[in-house]
């Protein structure tokens, strides 16, 4: 066990954790931030996706000891009150079915749009490739990303 100072959603938080505990469990079990989901634990589904220094990262694959001063953004920090253009577009296009993967999908889309503010279908396909939606909401996800791009998500 060691003490780590983590930059989560713009705030420095101290947490005592086992050095190899993945960020996902630090967030969920130690900090009570349950928005990031556990789907597979091996980086194969995308449900645990967060932003690490603005880049998409699978929090189940990030040991807490390797985070250093990296800036982590989770769904809880994406917007103050759920008004990020992606979140609004997701609601507008009625994307979720079971909804379990959607936080990861939104965080993946947020990372994509930092790179490509107005992504093409091909760029969306490529960027979202590692995000499984078992309910099959892909079409609406794609529509929502295009809508958010029009609204100027960054």
């Amino acid at each position: 066990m060691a003490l780590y100072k983590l930059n989560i959603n713009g705030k420095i938080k101290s947490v005592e954790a086992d050095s190899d505990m993945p960020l996902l469990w630090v967030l969920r079990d130690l900090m009570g931030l349950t928005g990031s989901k556990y789907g597979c634990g091996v980086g194969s589904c995308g449900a645990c996706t967060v932003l690490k220094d603005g880049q998409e990262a699978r929090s189940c694959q990030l040991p807490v000891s390797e985070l250093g001063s990296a800036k982590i953004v989770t769904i809880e920090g994406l917007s103050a009150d759920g008004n990020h253009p992606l979140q609004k577009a997701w609601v507008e296009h009625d994307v979720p079915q079971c909804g379990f993967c959607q936080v990861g999908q939104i965080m993946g889309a947020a990372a994509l749009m930092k790179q490509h503010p107005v992504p093409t279908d091909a760029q969306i396909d490529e960027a979202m490739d590692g995000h499984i939606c078992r309910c099959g909401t892909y079409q609406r996800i794609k529509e929502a990303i295009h809508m958010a791009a029009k609204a100027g998500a960054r």
Partner: protein
Amino acid sequence: MSELTRRSFLQVIGAGSAAFVLGCTFDTKTGSKPTETEPLGPGFVANAFVEIESNGTVRITASKSDMGQGVRTAFAVLIAEELDADWSKVVVVQAQADSKKYGGQGVGGSQTIMSMNQRLREFGGSARMMLVAAAAKTWGVDPSTCRTENGKVFHDATKKSLDYGKLAEVASTMPVPTGEVKLKSPSEFKLIGKRNKRVDNKDVVTGKAKYGLDISVEGMVFAAISRRPSLGASVKSFDDKATRKVEGVLDVIQMSSGVAVIGKNTWAALKGRKALVVEWEEPNKSANTKAIRAGLLEAVGDHKEMPAGSKVVNATYDFPFLAHATMEPMNAVADVRDDSATIWTPTQQADGAQNQVMRALNLPADKVVVNVTLIGGGFGRRLSNDYVAEAVQISKQIKKPVKLIWSRDDDMKNDNYRPMSHHALRGAVKDGKALAWSHQFIKAGRGARKASNFGNADIAYAIDDAGMAQGAGQSPVPTGAWRSVDHSQSTVANEVFMNELAIAAGVDPVAFRKSHLRNQRLIKVLELAVEKSNWSKPLPAGWGRGVACFQGYGSFAAHVVEVSVKDKKIKVERVICAVDCGQAINVSGVEAQMQGACIDGISTALKSEITVTNGQIDQTSYTDFEWCTMAEAPKIEVHLIQGGDRPGGMGEVGYPGVPAAVANAVHNATGQPVRAFPIRLS
């Protein structure tokens, strides 16, 4: 339900309300508004499903679980419609398990809307009548001179109006209507049959929605179970020395399903489990997919004789075991005390879970509370509450509240799988028509039933002397219901075979189907899908087009699929669906179910299968139980016919046509018939 039963039901449930609020209430004006659980103010408890608070909030209780099929939204729509509620003031709360109060709470077989539609509308209408009576009493006017709209009662002659919230107290004193509850005609609908957004959207997109895995209770510890290395294995002995040295590990206990490691957090439990050394008794080490299939072939019986002078067509089709692979792995939180138990879990069988816990702990119903969380996917998997039983066993033994988490690998290897099956079909054609049809449906798996209510209805086609015989082959693989149940095999086989008969008869597959179909609603959806697909338009080289149709669960669907085949690689390029579900409750939900079923159909037609080697399930995660990704998902067009007064089921009707139409399209593209799923070109 009969009028008498319905009346007494309305009266019996008139008092008391104990809904568990997930913190997932919503505000329809802004999409939804996550709030903490609010205390119930003095209000009007109209019945078990409808409660109106003095501030005007309308609380609608969903007695059925939402696993993504949208029942929480559908409940709100049905009740709010007849209540004339202000949609922006509607919140949905999830019922605890209580089948005496709510009736059966299981969700499966696409039954929820079919079974609840009428009753929910009556509950909404009954509450509305009590509010009208309250207003009439307040104003001293005849109730028949009042009307309701958008959360208010109006008396137009005197230009008076009162909000439902203001009427709540008086309405509580009004008798529950015993006569017929007059329901709206479809032309009066404001919500039913329109596009309504899912009530939990805002909570989902902000990460505030609570699934089973997100539940946290005071003093809770975490558990993971070291599970069987092969099917049917049991623990012989175990060594937990290394486990107990792992930071955060609190305890290790033996279970019927393995050895549970209890930790201060999930990671400690998982890490401790990894350090466990378990010796297993393994009775099925020799089981493998090939041997199970050989057993199926042995169980195939004789086909009946085909009419003399006809052209006889033979085909066989093989289907693999399939996992449910819900995004949220199995889990449950259990807090077992000496004289009570409280459970929080994502389950498709809330009342079933309660009964199971009551039996396990020998407790009465009022001492077993089952809270149903949002569910990260079901597809039939959560009809079994095996994970609830495990959490209860652990909590009872360690005397603490515990969250049991299944890892993805646990989930993949310990499912109740869609059975593997082998289908032998024989048919006869003459003069462009099918004359006879024989289908041998052989299923594998422990618990595979020879007969089922979900999948062996008569085929959709008027073919004299059509029949299906069922058999089962030996296998240690546990099986269960998977989206569309037996239809995921029987109907898919039928629809691929129908195509082969059409080709043998030298008739276009659409025309061939139409000349044998009996049901006008099915014919109409077929015609619509075909029309929207430009069926006769030539496709690019290497492409193929296929069609399939299906009636079941009270609804009708047809699919046209276009595929391209390049270097033995199949890509689904376009799917056109037409569906008639009778009265749609939520058009957006109907389309979502069709789109989702398409992705299931494409995934299972081309990619997914569960196999067995040395007695163990080979697959571990989405890396080897592959699912369709966004790049592989085609454009899906959904065309809706609301062809009846009553709603049909939507959870399953969209599935069977898809793998069949994909197979028929592949046949069309390659000239080679498909004989096995997932389809692999060699």
